[in-house]
C-alpha cells in the first residue's frame, strides 16, 4: 500500500492540472507527484471517474441542461444526431423527437444585452411551472440554448409546452420572451 500523502495537491490545483490550465513546469511537478502518490492519484482517479459519469449521463440523454452554440456544433461534428429548433422571440414551433435523435436542442432567441440574470420558466399542461433560476447565457449571441432530457422528452404525449424567459433585476422580473412548442409524440 502507498503511504498517506504528506503534501496533498489542493483540489483546485488538481482540477487545473487535469484541464490543462497549468504552466508546463507546474504540470510536470504534478505529473511526477501523481505517479509517486497513491493518495493523490486516487483523488485524481475519482475526479476522472466523476467526469466520465457526467459525459455518460449526457450521452444517454439523462440531463436537461443549458449549453452553448459552440458545444452543440461540436456534438454534431462528433457524429451525434442533433435535432435543433430555433424559436423566435414570442414565437412557436412544431416539434418532435425521433428514435435516432441523440440530442434535441431548443434555441430561444431573445434580446439579452444588459441582462444580468435570467430565469427560465417551463409550463407543461397539468403540472406546476418549473423554474430554472439563474441560467447561464452569452449576451452577445442573443439566444439561450436548451438541451432536453431525452428520456423525459420521449415519454411526452403530444402536447403544448411554453417556455418563458425573465430578466431578473433585484426583486423585479421582466418577461423578455415567450416560446411555444407544439410537441408531437413520435409514432413508431
Amino acid at each position, binding site marked *: *500500500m*502507498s*503511504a*498517506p500523502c504528506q503534501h496533498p495537491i489542493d*483540489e*483546485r490545483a488538481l*482540477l487545473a*492540472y*487535469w*484541464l*490543462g*490550465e497549468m504552466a508546463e513546469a507546474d504540470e*510536470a511537478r504534478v*505529473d*511526477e*507527484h*501523481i*505517479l*509517486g*502518490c*497513491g*493518495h493523490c*492519484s*486516487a483523488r*485524481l*482517479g*475519482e*475526479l*476522472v*471517474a*466523476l*467526469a*466520465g*459519469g*457526467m*459525459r*455518460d*449521463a*449526457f450521452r*444517454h440523454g*439523462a*440531463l*436537461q*441542461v*443549458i*449549453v*452553448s*452554440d*459552440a*458545444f452543440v456544433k*461540436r456534438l454534431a461534428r462528433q457524429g451525434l444526431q442533433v435535432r435543433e429548433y430555433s424559436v423566435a422571440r414570442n414565437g412557436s414551433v412544431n416539434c418532435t423527437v425521433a428514435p435516432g435523435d441523440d440530442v434535441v436542442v431548443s434555441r430561444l432567441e431573445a434580446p439579452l444585452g444588459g441582462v444580468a440574470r435570467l430565469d427560465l420558466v417551463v409550463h407543461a399542461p397539468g403540472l406546476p411551472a418549473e423554474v*430554472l*433560476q*439563474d*441560467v*447561464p*447565457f*452569452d449576451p*452577445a449571441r442573443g439566444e439561450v440554448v436548451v438541451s432536453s*432530457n431525452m428520456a423525459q422528452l420521449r415519454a411526452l404525449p403530444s402536447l403544448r409546452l411554453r417556455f418563458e424567459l425573465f430578466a431578473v433585476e433585484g426583486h423585479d422580473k421582466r418577461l423578455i420572451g415567450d416560446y411555444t412548442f407544439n410537441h408531437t409524440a413520435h409514432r413508431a
Partner: protein
Amino acid sequence: MCNETPPRYTSLAKAGRCYLRPVQNPPTEGLEDDAALARRIAQAQPGRARGAEAELCRRLAPRVRLYGLKHLRDEHAAADLMQQVMLMTIEKLRAGALRDGEKLASFVFGICRMSVLELRRGGLRREQLLERYGEDLAPAAAATEPLFDLERVAGCLEKLPQRERSVLLMTFYEDKPADEVGAQLGLSAGNVRVIRHRGLTHLRECVTAEGTTA
C-alpha cells in the same frame, strides 16, 4: 509478472468504466512502500520477485493510466501507454537501472514522457510490445469497480443549480479549461473556476451520500 493468469486486456477496458471510488488513506503499517518494492525487484534475480512486481504494478498501473489520459486524452492510447510503461519499468528494475528506490516516481515519469512521445509518433503498440517482451511480461490491469451507476450520477446532476450543471458538463464533456467554457457562457474564467469547484463539491456529496437515492 503482474498477473499470474492474465486476461491481458479485458480489464483494461474495465478500468475506463469506473465512476467513483471514495478516497481513503490506506493502512500502511507493516506494508512496503513503493521504493522498498522497487529495491526488492532490483535486488532479486530477474523474474524472481514476482510478488513485489505484481504489487508494484497494481499500484503504478492506475497512476500511469491517468498520466496517459491526461496527456493523450484517449482511453485506448492510455491503455497502450500503461502497458508499455509497466513493461519497461519492470524490465529496467530487473536490470538494476534504478539505483535509488526513492526516485522511483521520477524514474517512471521519465519512462512515461518518453513513451508518450513514442505513442504520438505511432511507435510501439500492444502487439509489438508482446512480441518484444513475450507472455511472461503481461502487465497488470488497473481494474477498478464501478461503485455508482449512471442513473445516480445523472440524478445528482439534475439536482444541481442550472449554472453549476452547465459549467460542469461543458467543462468535463471534453475537459475544457475555464477560459474556453467562460467565453461560451458569458462568464469570466475566474467565475467558471468558482462555479465548477462548488458544483463538483455538490455533485460529489450527492453521489457519495450513503443510504440515499439521487
